[in-house]
């Protein structure tokens, strides 16, 4: 009899524990962490637009740009050299200017 009563008391006490659980607060950084998770995914989706631009393509593009620059530079150098040579020839009367002048 006493044993049963004791068990019933223990059951009541155990069930009543549920009403004595204290409030627990969420961590201070929960909001920031969650916002980061929510909007980091979105940024990842946006960056998918550039997925086709693989590192190999990036390297190939870089090589193309460098080659184009080198060609452009050498052409420019050549053009400047030719200009200097023709200017020299003109000033020493080694050649006639291409432009026609009425004063001559």
């Amino acid at each position, binding site marked *: 009899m006493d*044993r049963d009563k004791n*068990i019933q008391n*223990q*059951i009541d*006490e*155990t*069930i009543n*524990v*549920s*009403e*004595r*659980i*204290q*409030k*627990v*607060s*969420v*961590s201070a950084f*929960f*909001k920031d*962490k*969650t*916002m980061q*998770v*929510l*909007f980091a*995914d*979105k940024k990842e989706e946006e960056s998918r637009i550039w997925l086709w631009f693989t590192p190999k393509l990036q390297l190939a593009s870089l090589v193309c740009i460098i080659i184009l620059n080198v060609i452009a530079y050498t052409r420019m150098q050549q053009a400047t050299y030719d200009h200097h040579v023709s200017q020299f020839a003109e000033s020493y009367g080694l050649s006639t200017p291409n432009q026609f002048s009425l004063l001559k």
Partner: protein
Amino acid sequence: MTEDEFIEKLKRHNASAYARLLDDFQQKVFATCISFVPSKEDAEDIAQEVFVEVFNSIGTFKGNSKLSTWIYRITTNKCLEFIRKRNTKKRFGFMQSLLGHEMPLDKSHYFTEVNHPGVILENKEKSDILFYAINQLPNAQKVVFILHKIDGKSYQEISDIIEKSFSSVESLMFRAKKNLRTLLENFYKNNK
């Protein structure tokens, strides 16, 4: 701003609307999670999953219920899913220990490791037993008991969340208490 306007902003994935949603609901969602899962770290992980689910599924929200009810429904489902997965893992771990593939585990159930920060030390042993017993209940009874007795929600709120009538909630609560008493009685009789 009305609730409809707020929901529209959420559907457009507006960052300031989500910041407000988190301000309003982070504590409430976390409180529900920690009522189901008595570990702060796990409860926070589930709460975060809830907000991710809200973010991904807000487009399907038709407005048949209040936004808060819909969020609590997601929370309850996420908690039950977590418990089911965790118990499966534990059982698998226990099987592995029997087969000698892993270090022996003396626990085969998630709720034998109650680590609820809101439980004071003198109630620790009893709360371990209580959580273990609650998780022996069928899911519907478990949800009603936890939401009412631990999370402190009213029968009407629970009725909206689980989409059952008020009288069904009362009936589930009655059966939950009765089954819990039987489970606890067996436990105390066997451990005397």
